[in-house]
């Protein structure tokens, strides 16, 4: 099984620091979403991983090996980087034949993969006549041609219709279920929420947060009490953040629900609700990346917000 390891990666373009001491790991058997605003360094990180760009510092490896040292790259990693990386006059079938030749893959795989991505009927048309969605499917076909255990896909859902997005989701999930590594950058947060098990979030080239989506979405504990001020006083000294929600409940983050309950009990504060608060990925993402200086993980050192 192949994990992808990004270790203290740094890349500069002139004075612009595109990737800044970035470290994270992508595990096999899971779909990992790679999120960040435009220009945050996602594509640059992928290009360095694939040895298409050179890092100024740090390393990016595939199962501990640099891409350029892989014995059989096309049977190891399937890649989508740019949606329009085709010669417009070349047919889809011929594009895949070129890829098959270069990757030493049997030409019989071409027809098979075209069927898999639903492009058989358009295979003998010039790619210049394809819609963006069809080009994405052709890019996916090229990535899947060698049936690699790793997929590195930059915005693969761009231009796909809802049916195509669902097909892509099922395909990637089934590959992850087979123990393969799937690393997908996307700006479609709702889609990543459906698709990914883990996320890596970067902003301005730096890691913002990484982990299982299910864990990251548990952003705190929703608490209802008739004695808000008493509860806030009871939580004084705990390393937590307390915010008032629109519905009047309190959102307490930074400490477990059990500690909130214990402190309330000790202070004699009645609680009417104590439940996990789950945020949407979109809300979380906006919080992680909204500030121009937001390059740290969601605050761990909490400060109290008085209501």
């Amino acid at each position: 099984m192949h994990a992808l390891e990004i270790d203290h990666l740094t890349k500069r373009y002139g004075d612009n620091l595109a990737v800044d001491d970035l470290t994270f790991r992508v595990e096999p058997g899971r779909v990992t979403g790679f999120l960040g605003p435009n220009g945050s360094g996602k594509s640059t990180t992928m290009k360095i991983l694939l040895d298409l760009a050179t890092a100024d510092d740090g390393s990016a490896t595939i199962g501990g090996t640099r891409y350029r040292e892989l014995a059989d790259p096309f049977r190891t990693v399937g890649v989508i980087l740019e949606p329009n990386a085709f010669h417009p006059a070349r047919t889809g079938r011929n594009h895949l034949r070129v890829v098959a030749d270069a990757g030493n893959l049997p030409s019989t795989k071409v027809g098979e993969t075209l069927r898999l991505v639903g492009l058989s009927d358009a295979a003998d048309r010039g790619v210049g006549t394809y819609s963006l969605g069809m080009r994405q499917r052709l890019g996916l076909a090229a990535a899947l041609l060698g049936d690699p255990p790793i997929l590195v896909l930059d915005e693969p859902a761009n231009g796909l219709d809802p049916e195509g997005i669902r097909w892509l989701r099922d395909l990637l999930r089934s590959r992850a279920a087979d123990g393969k590594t799937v690393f997908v950058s996307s700006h479609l947060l709702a889609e990543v929420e459906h698709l990914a098990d883990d996320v890596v979030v970067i902003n301005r080239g730096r890691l913002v947060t990484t982990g299982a989506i299910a864990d990251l979405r548990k952003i705190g504990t929703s608490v209802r009490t008739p004695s808000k001020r008493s509860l806030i006083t009871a939580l004084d000294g705990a390393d937590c953040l307390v915010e008032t929600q629109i519905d009047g409940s309190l959102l307490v983050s930074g400490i477990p629900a059990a500690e909130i309950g214990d402190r309330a009990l000790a202070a004699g504060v009645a609680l009417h609700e104590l439940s996990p608060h789950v945020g949407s990925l979109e809300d979380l993402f906006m919080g992680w990346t909204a500030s121009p200086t937001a390059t740290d993980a969601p605050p761990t050192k909490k400060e109290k917000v008085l209501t």
Partner: protein
Amino acid sequence: MSWLRLLKAESRKLATTRLPLGFLAVVGLVAAVVAVAVLMGAGTDDAEGLFDTIEAQTSLLSFGMNAMIIGGLFGAIVAAREYAHGTAVPMFLAGPNRYRAMLAQLAVVVFFGGVIGLVGGGLTIAAGALALPVVDFQLLLPVDVAVRLVATSALAGAIGAGLGAGIGALIRNPGGAVTAAVAILLLGPPIVAQLVNDAAAWVPGSLIDVISGLAQEPSLVTAIGALAIWGLVPVVIGMFAVQRRDVI
């Protein structure tokens, strides 16, 4: 083995676009222009001096410099559009050793540049052979001279294509690469020859004249070597750039 599969992929790439046919059409057009020039030149006062000796016909039907320019444009477009279309990416992903990937492309481009020169040289002589009798002249070229002209044309086309591919890999923009190739092959040499007297013998046109048998200085081997250097320098610079720069 990996080099061979890259070579196969590059060959298929070239064969699955219309560019090679377009360039073959261009050399056909140039040959047709030569035929028209013969037909029109026959009516002038200088016609006899233009067509009635082996030397004059050798000069008239020499396609070498055309082959080098057309080959240069071909190489520049093929190499630069790989970056413009993003189709360089699969090749560098398949062959992460970038020298190997570029060498495969270079080999195919140089080969086809040679084909362009070969076809152009042959068509030009054929055009002359067809046009000269129409205006009451005979084709005087002996077979060995005709073969040498065609071989020179093939060599010049191949070297020009290599030169163009080097420029294309360096500039990565088809328009810019074509402009640079034209500047180097068409505009630069006359200017250099005017500025530096001794340089005149070393510009492509003069070297091709030697290889074609139209001039004697420098020697044939030296001329072939010098012409090869015209192609090799951009190739080496292009390969160095490919190795050093990010692909995308």
